[in-house]
C-alpha cells in the first residue's frame, strides 16, 4: 500500500506540473495574440516592406548636331561562384558536361585566350572551390547579352554560379573626341561639362515603399512615391562633332610628327562665340596621345600672339601709327639690364610698325612699350583689362584658372615686366583667352563670351535656351580695328605666315607665335618652345576663329609657330572653308554637254516597253511585233528599241539579259545552263552566233 500511495502521489504531481505548463503556454499564446498582437503584426508588415531607392537616370550630353557625346549605360563584372550546389552535385556532372562548349564560346566572344586556356583556368578555379572567381571585368551590355545565353550560364545563377555585378558608367561614343571637355562623371573629382552641369544632369533619386512578393519583386504599397525620382535633363553642347573631329585629327597628326608634349586647338564661331571644337592632347608615358588635361583653359605664356594686344593698346592711345618707321637693332636690344632677342635675323632694319608686327619682332614691341608705357604702366594695364585679359573668360567650364598679370607693387613686377609683357612673356593667359581676343577682332570689335552649352532639354523638349553673351560691344575704335585687321592679314600675306598661306583661295588673318617656355625649376634651359597660331577666316567675312597652341619637346628641331601650329590651323581652315563657307569663288558653271550615260539592255519587248514607260524614258521603237525579244540601246539622246535576232540553231547573245530571260531563252533551245553570280549576264561560255545542239552545256556568269 505504501508503495501504491507513493506512486500515485508522484503521478499526480507530474500531472499537475504538466497542466500548469499547458496553461502557461496557452496563456502566453493568448497574450501574444491579443495583447501584443498589434505590435507584432505591424512588425511583420514592415519586415515585408522596404523603402526602395529609385535611381534617377543621368541626362545625356548631345553635340550641336544631335549626336550623343556622353550617355549612361550599364557595364558588368562577371564572377563565378564555384561552390553552388547546382554545379557540384553528382560529382560535378553539370560542370564537366558544359566546360568544353563554355570555354569555346568564351574564347570566341573575348578572343583573349584560346578555348584550351579558358578550360584550364576554369578547371583550376573549380578545383580550388573559388567562391568569387573573377571571369571578366568591364564587359559591355552586348557582350553580357550573349554571355548569359552561353551553355551553363543560361541555366541561371543557382546552377551555373554566374554572378553579374552591374554598374552604370558614362559612355562616350566618340571616345577621345573632346573627352576632357565633355568630362568625366566619376564619383569624385568630376571634370568638364559633367561637372559644370552636374546639378542639371544628375536628376534626383526617388524613394518608394514597396512590399516584397515572391521572386524579390517589390510592389509599391500605394501608388505614391515618398520622393518621386527626377530624370536628369539633357544638355546640348555647342561642340560640332565634324569640326571637332577635323581639329583633333589635324592636331594629332602634327603632335605625332613632332613628338610634341601637349597641345590644343580651339575653334570658335565668330558671330556667337560658340565653341565648335576644343581639342586637347597630351603625350602619355608610352608615347601615345590622350585628352588628359584641358590645356585650352590652362594659362601659360602666350608669346607673340599677344603682340596683338600691345599693338591695340598703342593704336588706341594713338602713340604710333602703322606707317611710322622704327629700327629693329639687328634683332638684339638691351633694356633694364636684360636683352631682347628676335627669333630670326631681319633683312632690313628700318621698317614700319606694320612690317615689324608682320615679322613678329620682339625688339620692336619692347621698344614701343618701353617708350610709351614704362612711365605709365597703368595705362597699358588698363587696356589689358578692357580686353579682359586679366580675368577668366567665363566659359561654362569649371576649373578655368585666372590669368597671371603682374602689376606695379607686386613682388614679381620689375623694370623688365612691361617690355617682356609686350611680346607675350611675363604673363600667363589661356589659349581660350587668345581665341576670345582674336574672335573680338574678327567680330568687328564685339567681344563674345566663349560658351559650350546652348540649351537644356528634357526628353527632347527645349527647357532653356542659352543665348550668346556679349562681353563688350566695342573693344576698340573702328579705326584701330581696321588697322589691326590689316596687320593680321599682312602677317599671312607678307609676314611670318606668308609661305604657309601661299595659294590659299581665301584670305586668312592671323598671327604666329613662338615662345620659349619655362620648364618647372629647370627654367628656360631645356629649350622648350611653345608654337602657336591664332587667327580667323575668311578674313573679308570672318566665320570662324581658331587658335592652335603646341608645346614642343625639349630641343625640338622644328618649333616655329608658322611651321608647327600654322599647318594645323591651315588644315582646319581649309576643311571648314570647303565644307561650310559658300562663296562664289568655288562656283563653277554647269556643263551643257549631253548626258554620257550609255546603256544596253536586252529583254522581252513587253517588259522593256513597260519599264520605259514607267521610267518615262524616251524610246524610238523600231520593232514590229509585241512578243519579240528586243534590245534597248542608248548611246544618243533617245534610246532605241531594236529587234533582237534569234536563230533557232545558233547561240543568241545573252549579255545584258536578266537571269529569268536568259534561262528561258536557253532552255527553249534545249541547252543545259550553269549559273554563276547574280544580276545580269556578263558573259557566256558559248559565243553568240555559234551553232548549238540540244542538251549542250552552257555556263553563264552574272555580275
Amino acid at each position, binding site marked *: 500500500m505504501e508503495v501504491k500511495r507513493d506512486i500515485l502521489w508522484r503521478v499526480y504531481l507530474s500531472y499537475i506540473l504538466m497542466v500548469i505548463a499547458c496553461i502557461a503556454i496557452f496563456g502566453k499564446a493568448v497574450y501574444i495574440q491579443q495583447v501584443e498582437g498589434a505590435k507584432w503584426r505591424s512588425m511583420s508588415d514592415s519586415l515585408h516592406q522596404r523603402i526602395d531607392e529609385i535611381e534617377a537616370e543621368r541626362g545625356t550630353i548631345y553635340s550641336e548636331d544631335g*549626336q*550623343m557625346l556622353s*550617355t549612361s*549605360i*550599364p557595364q558588368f563584372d562577371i564572377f563565378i561562384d564555384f561552390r553552388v550546389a547546382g554545379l557540384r552535385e553528382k560529382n560535378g556532372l553539370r560542370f564537366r558536361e558544359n566546360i568544353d562548349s563554355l570555354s569555346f564560346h568564351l574564347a570566341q566572344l573575348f578572343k583573349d585566350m584560346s578555348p584550351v586556356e579558358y578550360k584550364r583556368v576554369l578547371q583550376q578555379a573549380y578545383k580550388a572551390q573559388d567562391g568569387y572567381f573573377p571571369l571578366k571585368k568591364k564587359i*559591355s*551590355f*552586348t557582350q553580357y*547579352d550573349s554571355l548569359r545565353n552561353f551553355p551553363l550560364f543560361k541555366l541561371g545563377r543557382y546552377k551555373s554560379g554566374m554572378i553579374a555585378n552591374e554598374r552604370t558608367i558614362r*559612355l562616350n*561614343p*566618340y*571616345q577621345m*573626341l573632346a573627352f576632357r571637355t565633355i568630362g568625366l562623371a566619376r564619383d569624385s573629382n568630376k571634370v568638364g561639362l559633367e561637372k559644370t552641369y552636374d546639378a542639371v544632369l544628375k536628376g534626383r533619386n526617388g524613394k518608394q515603399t514597396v512590399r516584397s*512578393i515572391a*521572386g524579390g*519583386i517589390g*510592389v509599391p504599397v500605394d501608388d505614391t512615391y515618398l520622393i518621386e525620382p527626377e530624370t536628369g535633363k539633357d544638355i546640348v553642347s555647342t561642340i560640332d*562633332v*565634324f569640326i571637332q*573631329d*577635323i581639329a*583633333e*585629327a589635324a592636331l594629332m597628326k602634327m603632335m605625332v610628327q613632332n613628338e610634341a608634349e601637349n597641345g590644343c586647338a580651339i575653334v570658335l564661331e565668330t558671330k556667337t562665340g560658340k565653341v565648335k571644337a576644343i581639342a586637347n592632347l597630351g603625350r602619355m608615358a608610352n608615347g601615345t596621345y590622350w585628352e588628359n588635361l584641358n590645356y585650352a583653359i590652362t594659362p601659360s605664356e602666350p608669346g607673340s600672339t599677344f603682340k596683338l594686344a600691345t599693338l591695340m593698346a598703342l593704336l588706341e592711345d594713338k602713340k604710333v601709327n602703322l606707317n611710322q618707321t622704327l629700327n629693329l637693332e639687328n634683332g638684339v636690344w638691351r633694356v633694364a639690364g636684360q636683352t631682347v632677342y628676335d627669333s630670326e635675323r631681319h633683312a632690313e632694319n628700318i621698317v614700319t610698325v606694320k612690317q615689324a608686327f608682320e615679322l613678329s619682332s620682339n625688339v620692336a614691341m619692347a621698344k614701343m612699350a618701353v617708350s610709351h608705357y614704362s612711365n605709365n604702366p597703368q595705362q597699358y594695364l588698363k587696356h589689358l583689362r578692357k580686353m579682359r585679359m586679366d580675368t577668366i573668360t567665363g566659359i561654362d567650364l569649371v576649373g578655368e584658372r585666372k590669368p597671371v598679370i603682374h602689376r606695379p607693387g607686386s613682388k614679381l613686377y620689375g623694370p623688365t615686366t612691361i617690355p617682356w609683357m609686350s611680346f607675350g612673356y611675363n604673363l600667363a593667359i589661356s589659349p581660350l583667352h587668345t581665341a576670345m581676343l582674336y574672335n573680338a577682332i574678327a567680330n568687328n570689335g564685339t567681344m563674345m563670351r566663349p560658351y559650350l552649352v546652348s540649351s537644356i532639354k528634357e526628353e527632347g523638349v527645349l527647357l532653356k535656351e542659352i543665348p550668346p553673351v556679349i562681353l563688350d560691344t566695342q573693344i576698340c575704335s573702328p579705326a584701330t580695328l581696321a588697322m589691326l585687321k590689316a596687320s593680321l592679314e599682312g602677317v599671312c600675306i607678307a609676314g611670318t605666315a606668308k609661305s604657309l598661306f601661299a595659294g590659299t*583661295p581665301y584670305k586668312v588673318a592671323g598671327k604666329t607665335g613662338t615662345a620659349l617656355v619655362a620648364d618647372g625649376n629647370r627654367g628656360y634651359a631645356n629649350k622648350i618652345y611653345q608654337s602657336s597660331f591664332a587667327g580667323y577666316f575668311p578674313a573679308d567675312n570672318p566665320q570662324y576663329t581658331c587658335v592652335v597652341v603646341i608645346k614642343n619637346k625639349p630641343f625640338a628641331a622644328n618649333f616655329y609657330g608658322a611651321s608647327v601650329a600654322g599647318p594645323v590651323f591651315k588644315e582646319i581652315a*581649309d*576643311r571648314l*572653308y*570647303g*565644307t561650310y563657307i*559658300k562663296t562664289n569663288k*568655288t*562656283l*563653277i*558653271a*554647269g556643263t551643257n554637254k549631253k548626258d554620257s550615260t550609255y546603256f544596253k539592255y536586252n529583254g522581252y519587248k513587253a517588259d522593256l516597253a513597260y519599264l520605259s514607260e514607267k521610267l518615262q524614258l524616251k524610246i524610238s521603237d523600231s520593232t514590229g511585233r509585241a512578243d519579240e525579244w528586243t534590245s534597248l540601246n542608248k548611246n544618243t539622246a533617245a534610246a532605241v528599241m531594236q529587234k533582237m535576232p534569234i536563230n533557232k540553231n545558233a547561240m543568241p547573245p545573252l549579255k545584258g539579259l536578266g537571269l529569268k530571260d536568259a534561262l528561258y531563252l536557253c532552255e527553249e533551245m534545249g541547252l543545259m545552263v550553269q549559273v554563276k553570280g547574280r544580276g545580269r549576264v556578263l558573259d557566256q561560255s558559248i559565243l553568240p552566233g555559234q551553232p548549238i545542239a540540244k542538251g549542250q552545256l552552257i555556263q553563264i556568269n552574272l555580275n
Partner: protein
Amino acid sequence: MADRTIRRINAINNELKELQFKYKTLKSELMYKTEESQIVQLVAPMGLKISKDMPERIKQ
C-alpha cells in the same frame, strides 16, 4: 491578378531598358566607326585620302 500584372510590368520595363542599352551600345559603335578620322584610317590601305582640292559647287 494584380501581382501578375505588376510582374508583367516589371518584366516589360526590364525588356525596354535592355533594348535601350542595346540601342545605345550599337549606336555608339556606329557613331565611332563612321567618324571621319576613323574612316580615313580604314581606307588608307586602299590608297584613298581626303582631297586637298577645294570642293567646287555647280551653278544651277
